[in-house]
Structure formats: structure tokens, C-alpha cells
């Protein structure tokens, strides 16, 4: 593959050279030896390296120990010992079932609700309103969301307080099963609430693409004119065109939901936990031999997640075959009014649920005594904020500095790669796009541990303080997860940029670097800032990568929040969860305000 790429590059250079000869006007801007052009052209390869090495290195670091080869543990006996140990684990079936069920069901519910909302409110002002209400949820890290949901559904949570004691007669918290119920319902609820806004915004993002969006809206109108009820029109006309754009986010959600650690850790059962959580415990166990079993478990997780993805794709095919007839059967109405009402009810419930969670979180963070079943705290205090902020110095610094460095690298690379696209005159190869999104599809628990095992060998060769190495490791691990989102968010704006500006600038004698920095980047200020805020938000929310790559030595607000979530006080956890939400929110507010400010001063 890389060979092919190389030849392409050479070939393209040649093309440029030819053009130079033919077209003297462009020659100045297209000199192949221009450092900027060279750097930009090589950036996709660098990006590839940055993504492929950690992921594949990590996978190898898991596969070898799983097969019994682990020099660090003095194990050289190749065999399936680790797998048979894994197989003998009590409750393994339950773990896998829990992972599969929570992953599939939560994704499915989130997807269905997303579709219902889109269908019911397509081309209506309500869609924009729902978007406004739900988009802030997107920046809430999973851990914070889990904490908030846990507060809501606990036996002494907001819901039960609202109905006690006047309705329920409960003077003390009732016996309940939430959170941590054995069926994983709490996990499903948490994941669904978190993924729903993500999927919805992804869909709206696709619909916001000028050409596609306009076309689909007009087609929807055509269907209405042809007598289709709006919801039917959505499912028969919009969905078939929209779904391919949602596939990637959906698969990412599935992969995440089936292998994540934060939600099951905070909301899930522990007799037994989900597979991913169990693997994490095995890896962290004092008994290093358990790492072999954990590695085998990581491969099982890989298979489980892969299986779920395949299952989803198969289901997708089946749905297509089964419903293909229905598209053109001419039936216009499937109880649209009824479903419209149901959707309104579900949407209201979702919004209420989220609002109530957030209100609960804010109240807990400032609550004095607050005995069940009081709806409001007896008194309010800033004590919890004060003492938490006193403690927060280092984690806060780490969170922000890692976020900034990671995002800066990710944005620079993304911009260079997109510029390389334009110089070469064609989109990055499908292979590279696949690689960019790969970290979202491969369960992070599967390769991060391998990464850690490999990294443990490094400090001996490099005379750098281990702290710095941990720090660099965390940055690299974060880049894996920040890059895809930054790329996703920037690429469409970059590709839509009117190329005539660059042509005009070049014809005026501007070098490629000047065109890039002085013409393109300023035009892209708003999308870049938004991508930056998104990158920060993603980096801020990372739990497993921070914990593993940093060897637990780098603490961030998120790792602290998860550590505190099941323990300490609701009040302290609430403060940390709110901090987790505030940080990305500040980023987005800045991204929103700065361009206005800059343009305003520029207009003077």
C-alpha cells in the first residue's frame, strides 16, 4: 500500500512539474522543492505512522502475551494456556452477554430515537430547538454523564425524591436495583442518553452539508407534494440517502458502547462486570500472570466488538432487503400522527431526564445536608467547590495542557493533510480515511494495554525522566482519539472552500505557504476554532487512554472524577462532573465568541 502511495506522490510531482513547464503563471507557487509543499505532501504519511504504529503496536503487544509469549513475565511458552484460563473464568458468559447486550441495545435505542426525532421534526423549527437543547450534552464526558444519570436513578435519586413521600410513602430510600443492576439497564440508559445527542448531531451535521442538505430537503418536499405523510416521507426518501453518512458514527458508537469502561464502572453491576471492566481489573492485578489472561480477554473483546459490528451490518443488509419493497409500494401513511405524538413524548422525556440529571448534579455540588426525601437541600454551601478546587491544581493543569498540545497537533496534521489533498488534486485515499477512523472502531481496551506493555520497555533505552515519558504517551494516546473527530469536523469545510480564492492569490504571486496561512486559514477561522473546541472536549473526556498510557501517573479531571464517582461523596463527585462539563463548554463558547470578536475588530 505504501509503495503505491509513494509512486502516486512521485507521479503527482511529475504532473505538477509538467504543468509548470506548460503554464508559467503557476510556476512560482508550485516549485516542488518549496519546504512547505514538501512538508504538506508528506503529512499524510506522517499521520498514517502516528496512527498505525500505536494501534498495531498495541494489538501486537496484546496478541503475543495472549499466545503465551511475554518476555517481561519470563514467559516464552507459545500456546493457548491464556485462553483456556479465560475460558474457565466464572461468569465469562455473563460478562460477554452484558457487553453485547448493553452495546447493541443502547445503540439501537439511541438510533431509533434519533430517527424518530428526525422524522417527526424534519423541516420543522423544533428540530433546531431540539438540536440546541441536546448539543451541549455532546461535550459532556461519559464519566460525568454516568455520574449524573446515577444520581438520578438511585433509590434516593431525584426521581424518587420527586414522588416521596406524598405518593410513594417512602420515608427512607426504597430498596432499588439502580444503578448497578444486574441486567445492565443503568448502563443502557446512560449510554443511550449520551449517544443519542451524538447521533442526532451527526445526522444534522450531514443534513447541514449545503448540497446534500438542500437536495434532501427538496426531495422531502417532493414526497410531501406526492401525498406522503412527513414521517413516512422521511423514512422512505431521506433515510436511504442519510444512512450511509450515519454508518460510521453508528459503528463508532457500537464499538465504544460494547467496550467502554467508564459507564459500566460507574453504572454497571460487579457480579460480574462487563468484559471490558473485567479485563481492566485483570491487567491491573498484582498477579502479573493474570496479564496473559487479560490479553486473551482483550482479544475476546476485539472479537466481541467485531462480531457486534458485523451483526449490525448484517442487520442493515437484512433491513434493506426486507423493506426495499415498501419504499415504492405507494403507501403514504403508517399512523404518522400517532408516532408523531409518541416521538414528542419521548423527546420531552429525554430532555426532562437530562435536565433533571443536570439540576441534580448542580444541587449536589452546593448541597449542605440533604436528607431523603427532601426535594431541595436544607442549605447551600460552596464548601465542596472550595475544597475540590484546592485539590484540582495538577489535574486541571494536566487536563488543559494535554488537551491543548494534543489538539494543536491534531489540527495541524489535519490541515496539512487536507492541504495535501488540494495540492494533489484528489481526496486522501480510502485507505488513509479508514486508518483515521480506525481508533474509533477498535476497542481501546484491546490496544491500549499492548501499548502500555511495549512502553514499559522504553524507559530503559531513553534517558528521559519517566514522568515526561508518561506525559508524551498520554498525548500520543489522546491524539488517536482526537484526530478522527477533528478530521471529521474540519474536512468538509476545508473541501468546500472556494478554490478560486487560492487561484487568485497564487496568480498574484503568493507562495503556497502564504496562500495556506494568509488566505485559507483565515477563511476557515470559525471551523478551525470549532474543531479545536471539539478536540479539547474529546481530549478532556478521555479516561482509559489517560489512565493506561500515563501508567496512572498523569491525573486529569476525568480520571479524578471516575476515581471519585463510586466513592467519596455525591457532593465532591458532582463538583468534578460539573468541572468536566464546564471545561469543554468554555472551549465551545470561546470558539463561538472569538470569531465575532476578531471579525468585528477587523471590520473597523
Amino acid at each position, binding site marked *: 500500500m505504501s509503495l503505491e502511495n509513494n509512486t502516486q506522490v512521485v507521479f503527482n510531482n511529475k504532473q505538477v512539474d509538467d504543468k509548470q513547464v506548460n503554464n508559467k503563471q503557476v510556476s512560482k507557487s508550485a516549485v516542488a522543492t518549496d519546504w512547505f509543499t514538501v512538508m504538506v505532501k508528506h503529512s499524510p504519511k506522517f499521520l498514517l505512522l502516528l496512527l498505525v504504529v500505536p494501534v498495531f503496536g498495541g494489538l501486537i503487544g496484546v496478541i503475543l502475551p495472549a499466545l503465551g509469549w511475554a518476555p517481561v513475565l519470563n514467559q516464552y511458552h507459545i500456546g493457548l494456556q491464556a485462553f483456556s484460563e479465560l475460558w474457565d473464568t466464572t461468569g465469562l458468559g455473563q460478562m460477554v452477554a452484558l457487553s453485547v447486550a448493553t452495546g447493541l441495545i443502547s445503540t439501537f435505542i439511541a438510533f431509533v430515537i434519533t430517527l424518530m426525532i428526525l422524522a417527526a421534526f424534519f423541516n420543522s423549527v423544533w428540530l433546531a430547538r431540539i438540536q440546541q437543547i441536546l448539543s451541549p450534552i455532546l461535550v459532556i464526558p461519559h464519566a460525568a454523564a454516568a455520574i449524573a444519570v446515577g444520581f438520578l436513578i438511585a433509590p434516593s435519586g431525584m426521581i424518587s425524591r420527586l414522588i416521596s413521600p406524598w405518593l410513594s410513602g417512602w420515608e427512607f430510600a426504597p430498596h432499588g436495583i439502580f444503578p448497578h443492576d444486574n441486567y445492565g439497564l443503568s448502563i443502557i440508559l446512560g449510554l443511550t442518553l449520551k449517544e443519542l445527542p451524538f447521533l442526532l448531531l451527526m445526522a444534522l451535521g450531514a443534513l447541514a452539508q449545503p448540497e446534500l442538505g438542500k437536495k434532501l430537503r427538496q426531495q422531502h418536499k417532493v414526497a410531501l407534494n406526492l*401525498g406522503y405523510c412527513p414521517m413516512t416521507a422521511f423514512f422512505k426518501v431521506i433515510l436511504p440517502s442519510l444512512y450511509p453518512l450515519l454508518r460510521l458514527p453508528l459503528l463508532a458508537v457500537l464499538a465504544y458502547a460494547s467496550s467502554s469502561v467508564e459507564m459500566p464502572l460507574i453504572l454497571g453491576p460487579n457480579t460480574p462486570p462487563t468484559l471490558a471492566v473485567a479485563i481492566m481489573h485483570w491487567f491491573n492485578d498484582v498477579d502479573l500472570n493474570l496479564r496473559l489472561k487479560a490479553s486473551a480477554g482483550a482479544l475476546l473483546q476485539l472479537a466481541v466488538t467485531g462480531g457486534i459490528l458485523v451483526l449490525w451490518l448484517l442487520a442493515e443488509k437484512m433491513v434493506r432487503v426486507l423493506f426495499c419493497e415498501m419504499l415504492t409500494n405507494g403507501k403514504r401513511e403508517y399512523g404518522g400522527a400517532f408516532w408523531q405524538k409518541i416521538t414528542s413524548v419521548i423527546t420531552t422525556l429525554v430532555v426532562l431526564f437530562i435536565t433533571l440529571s443536570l439540576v441534580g448534579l448542580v444541587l449536589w455540588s452546593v448541597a449542605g445536608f440533604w436528607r431523603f426525601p427532601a426535594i431541595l437541600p436544607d442549605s447551600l454551601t460552596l464548601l465542596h467547590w472550595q475544597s475540590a478546587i484546592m485539590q484540582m491544581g495538577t489535574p486541571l493543569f494536566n487536563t488543559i495542557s494535554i488537551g491543548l498540545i494534543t489538539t494543536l497537533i491534531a489540527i495541524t496534521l489535519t490541515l496539512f493533510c487536507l492541504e495535501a489533498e488540494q495540492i494533489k488534486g484528489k481526496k486522501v485515499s480510502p485507505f488513509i480515511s479508514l486508518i483515521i477512523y480506525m481508533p474509533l472502531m477498535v476497542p481501546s481496551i484491546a490496544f491500549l494495554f499492548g501499548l502500555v506493555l511495549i512502553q514499559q520497555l522504553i524507559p530503559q533505552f531513553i534517558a528521559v525522566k519517566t514522568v515526561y515519558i508518561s506525559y508524551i504517551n498520554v498525548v500520543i494516546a489522546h491524539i488517536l482519539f482526537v484526530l478522527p473527530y477533528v478530521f471529521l469536523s474540519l474536512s468538509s469545510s476545508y473541501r468546500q472552500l472556494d478554490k478560486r480564492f487560492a487561484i487568485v492569490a497564487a496568480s498574484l504571486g503568493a507562495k503556497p505557504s502564504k496562500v495556506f496561512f494568509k488566505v485559507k486559514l483565515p477563511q476557515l477561522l470559525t471551523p478551525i476554532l470549532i474543531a479545536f473546541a471539539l478536540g479539547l472536549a474529546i481530549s478532556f473526556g478521555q479516561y482509559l487512554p489517560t489512565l493506561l498510557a500515563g501508567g496512572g501517573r498523569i491525573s486529569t479531571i476525568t480520571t479524578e472524577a471516575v476515581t471519585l464517582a463510586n466513592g467519596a461523596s455525591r457532593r465532591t463527585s458532582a463538583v468534578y462532573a460539573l468541572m468536566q462539563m464546564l471545561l469543554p463548554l468554555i472551549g465551545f463558547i470561546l470558539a463561538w465568541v472569538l470569531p465575532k470578536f476578531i471579525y468585528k475588530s477587523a471590520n473597523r
Partner: protein
Amino acid sequence: MQSSLQINNLKLFRQNELLLSVNEQINGGEILTIMGPSGSGKSSLLNWLTGSLPQGFHAKGEVLLNNNNITNTAAHLRHVGVLYQDALLFSHLSVAGNISFAMPAGNKKQRLEKIDDALEQFGLSGFANRHPDNLSGGQQARVALLRVLLSEPKAILLDEPFSKLDVQLREDTRQLVFEQIRYHQLPALMVTHDHSDAEAAGGKIITLTRPAAKAEIKQIRE
């Protein structure tokens, strides 16, 4: 009974500014042409007729289709077909799929036969299973017309339907569309920039002025 589309005392506003007022009746087979510069409210008029007036606009007046008041009827229950300048064929469906999507539900075999007949009539035999994106502009326009006609509309709206076609194609397509409107005795309303379209329509022509000129309507010709 002759079909008709009646627009009674319509006053269309953007924010609070009057865009246009119309009071017309179009009988089956007649084509009312609306001309005017962009921003004069032509598209808003169409949007109002189809029941999808965007935010920021409001209207007074009513619209009757075959003497039924459909002013407040939901867009999809109006039975008003529209042809846009873009064919807007669904790219996830084949040509036949696009058409059968539009047809009323019913016996599958009969529907397929009807589609084949229609395609043949329009010079598109053998195109049933083609993908719409691979069709030429003229072919796409014909499929779009077929799609509207087979949905059995009670009136038809034309939104600059031929402006994207080149001259020869434009005349052919126009002729086909107008023939079909007359054949099916459908009331039709066409919005266009193009004088030749207006003349070919052979009906009443209304020219809108810019809204700044307060929505005067000049009647050029009866």
C-alpha cells in the same frame, strides 16, 4: 365537474411587509404564469400553495382545490404536485422506483404495467431499472414529470421547471409538460423568468414587481 384551483384574496407577507396579493381562479387545463424578479415572492407563493411556507412569512387568504378549502391542510394531504427546475429524483431508487414511490398503493403488477406504459409513452422504454443519476437532463425531467403525473395530483405547480435545460431540450420538454397538463385537465401555476415559457403556456400572465414597489400587479395580457 371541471377541476379548478382558486386563490382567494391572498396577501403574502414577509415579516410585516406585504410581498404580493393575488386573487385568481385557474381552471383545469389552464396554466397561470407568474413572472417577476427574484425576491418578489414567487417562490413564497408556491410554498404557500404547497403548505410549506417558511418561518418569517405569513399569509392571509385561502386556496380552494376543486372547491375544497385546503388552506390549512397538511402539505402531504393536498394533492398538489410540484415540478422544480431540478428533477430531484431519489438517488436511492431506480427510475421505476421513483415513479412507483409516487403512485397510490395498489396491486403490484398493475402498478408495474402502468409504469412501463408511461415510460414507453414518454420515450423512456427500457429505462425502468436505470439509476436516475445516470440519466441526461432531459430524461431526468421527463421522469420527474411522470412521477408527478402518476401520483394523480389535482393541480400542478411548476417552479421554473425548464430553466436548467438547453434551448432545444427546453422546447421539447415544455411541450410535453403542457400537453400533459391539458390532457389531464389539471389546473397549473407556473413560476418563471423566461418569456418564451410564459408565451408557450398560453394562459394568463402575472408579473410581480419588487416588493419595494408595494406588490403591484401589472396585468400584461388577458
